[in-house]
């Protein structure tokens, strides 16, 4: 067995760190070699990256109407003269 080979379990364990650029270069290369030939891990990588891109979209969470003004209610009450 090639010592550079890496198992699916090990790739999945690091997949989040891989996306964040948080794995050491040597491990990154081994993961990339594995991902190039493993449809299963590649699908998980693609799906996870897709989810991260979707949830970063500001449209996902709408704020309650009028929140911006209510947010400072207590500040105004406390510091009526200044704000």
């Amino acid at each position, binding site marked *: 067995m090639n010592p550079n080979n890496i198992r699916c379990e090990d790739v*999945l*364990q690091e*997949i*989040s*760190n891989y*996306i*964040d*650029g*948080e794995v050491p270069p040597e491990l990154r290369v081994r993961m990339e070699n594995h991902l190039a030939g493993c*449809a*299963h891990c590649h*699908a*998980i990588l*693609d*799906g*996870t990256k*897709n*989810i*991260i*891109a*979707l*949830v*970063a*979209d*500001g*449209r*996902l*969470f709408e*704020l*309650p109407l009028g*929140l*911006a003004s*209510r*947010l*400072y*209610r*207590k*500040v105004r009450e*406390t*510091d009526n003269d*200044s*704000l």
Partner: protein
Amino acid sequence: MSENRESSEVLTAANVSAPNPDITIAGSELASKLERERKLIVRICAGEKDLFYELMRPYERAVFLAANSILQNEHDAEEAAQEAVLKAFIHLDRFRGDARFSTWLIQIVINEARMKRRKERKHLYDSIDEPKTDDESDYKPQDLADWREIPSEALQQQELREALRKAIASLAPIYRQVFMLRDVQQMSIAETSVALGITEASVKTRLLRARLQVRDSLAPGYDGRWAIGDGHWNKVRPW
């Protein structure tokens, strides 16, 4: 060491011989934004208190979402957010600038939301916040090799937004909080760690679990897929 996304781009640029001009611009924009914030804080502390709104405006959304990630109730989240904003206002002179203002602010919000939850749900509080065992990474993603990319345009659909929100809400609190700060609000790993008072290693472990779990919730399944129908993106299999 983790840095925020903008900063890590700058660090990357420092490692190559010819810096990418876009990355350099992103870094300088961040630096000038932080400098503007620093000056605003100095002026507010010197008495120009009406500038507090200007300082806070970019973070109103983050404040609410951070509180809601813990309380999972809009009304409670608003109350905690109001209290946190008040504390930030009162204690602004204690901000020393060793962390970013946004991190300091979100830390206040998280603490406030946690206090509110403890106060109002004392009987439930014991086990939901911190796991007793370190089995956080023990999660096997579904074997779904047929992932079809969900395009961002699909977010126009209420149905998909609802499915995503449900998937996030169904995460255990420790995973949801990390996911909301890191992936929804795009804080860095280091900032998330400071805001939640956990180690960076814990942030990474919890993030892995949260990301895989949300992905599984949105995965099409063996018999389903995301497809265009009537000009809309639909998940063929109902969730």
